[in-house]
């Protein structure tokens, strides 16, 4: 396995010292600003605990979620990707999540056809009051990823490039 994919950020990152080599799960969560982000805030204010391997990328609404984001996240080494927003009927923009749901349906089928490991792709609705659901989701997702280990199939592909 070669370890030197080139990209702008890596060049940026070159200034940062290298360190630990053992694998840690890497989960990327695209979450909407209004519900899930606030739900995750609530988990914090309630001092609930979950494993520290999730990286949140805030989007205004799940309507903003373009499946390209997910591909890029996997390309950048994500072991799992979560997309989460407001429950149906609760979207701050009324319909962003309904539109997103159609995109999920189609994209998910495409990933399945391509034989992607679908245990690594999660979708959820988590409201601003569901701090507990956020914690449970991240916990469970982390467990699944930990059990599966690194996303080798994708990483092999990345590293060939």
């Amino acid at each position, binding site marked *: 396995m070669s370890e030197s994919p080139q990209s702008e950020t890596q060049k940026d990152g070159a200034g940062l010292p290298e360190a630990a080599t053992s694998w840690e799960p890497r989960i990327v969560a695209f979450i909407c600003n209004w519900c899930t982000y606030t739900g995750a805030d609530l988990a914090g204010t309630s001092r609930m605990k979950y494993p520290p391997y999730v990286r949140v990328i805030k989007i205004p609404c799940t309507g903003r979620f373009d499946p390209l984001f997910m591909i890029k996240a996997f*390309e950048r080494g994500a072991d799992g990707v979560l997309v989460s927003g407001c429950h149906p009927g609760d979207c701050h923009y009324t319909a962003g999540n309904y539109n997103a*749901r159609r995109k999920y*349906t189609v994209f998910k089928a*495409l990933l*399945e056809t391509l034989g992607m490991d679908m245990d690594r792709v999660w979708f959820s609705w988590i409201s601003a009051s569901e701090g507990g659901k956020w914690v449970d989701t991240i916990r469970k997702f982390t467990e699944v990823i930990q059990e599966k280990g690194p996303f080798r199939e994708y990483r092999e592909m990345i590293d060939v490039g």
Partner: protein
Amino acid sequence: MSDRTDKIREVARKWLADGTVEAVVGWEQGTYREKCSPVLVRKPEDADRLLFNDRCTNNLMTYLKRDPVRGMEKVGVVAKGCDIKSLIGLLQESQVEREKVMVLAVTCEGVKKDDGTVPIKCQACDVNTPTFYDEIVGEKVASNPDPEARFKDLEKLDAMTPAERNSFWREELDKCIRCYACRQACPLCICSRCIAEKNQPQWVETSPHPRGNFSWNLVRAYHLAGRCVECEACETACPVNIPLMLLNRAMARTVKGAFDYEAGKDPEVQPPLRTFNLDDDNSFIL
């Protein structure tokens, strides 16, 4: 067949002579074996170049989105039922104005691939006699679609484990040389600047390595989901024989199952990714 050729010439000649259209896009005899190739006829006297036979496989709608046809006030296009499906797609997406196109439909018993076999689209054809046109030539041909044909090839994919599917595709997609012939051939790849060529940011890496190839083919199939009319132009165009139609048909099957939608049927219906239903499937979302 020759009967249809005569009629096509007749109508084209008339349209060109009386100024109904500026030009007619059709098929002519190719230079390579029996293959037919696209031709743009501008003068009535050239109408005799046009023909129709079972080697007229090309989907001529692709030319509607390209110069010089794109800029014409009014153009005639010879079309099989399946080609008209892509026109419907173009109409839904406002890429073509109905008033600017004269559709010269031709009934069709099916075409053949270069190797002489019958394409899946013909086995599954439900538009042997087109229903959307300005003029139609040829005897009525009853449709007798094989209900299994369309998604039959998907079964072997379905039967694989995800890991097997993944390695199947990785092998296939490794072949991709990023010539974008699929995109050029596709009547519904309508972007003037494809996302694969946009570099700020560059969502799809351009060099032909597995990572970039995977992303490119994924994005191509996704952007055609619910839009692809299964004309098979991309797969036919692919120089390295990637089974692109497997991806396209997987998408078509999903869209049919999830949203009860089939592309290229009705110009008045919203394409599935441009709308939603409150009770769309929610079962896969936690």
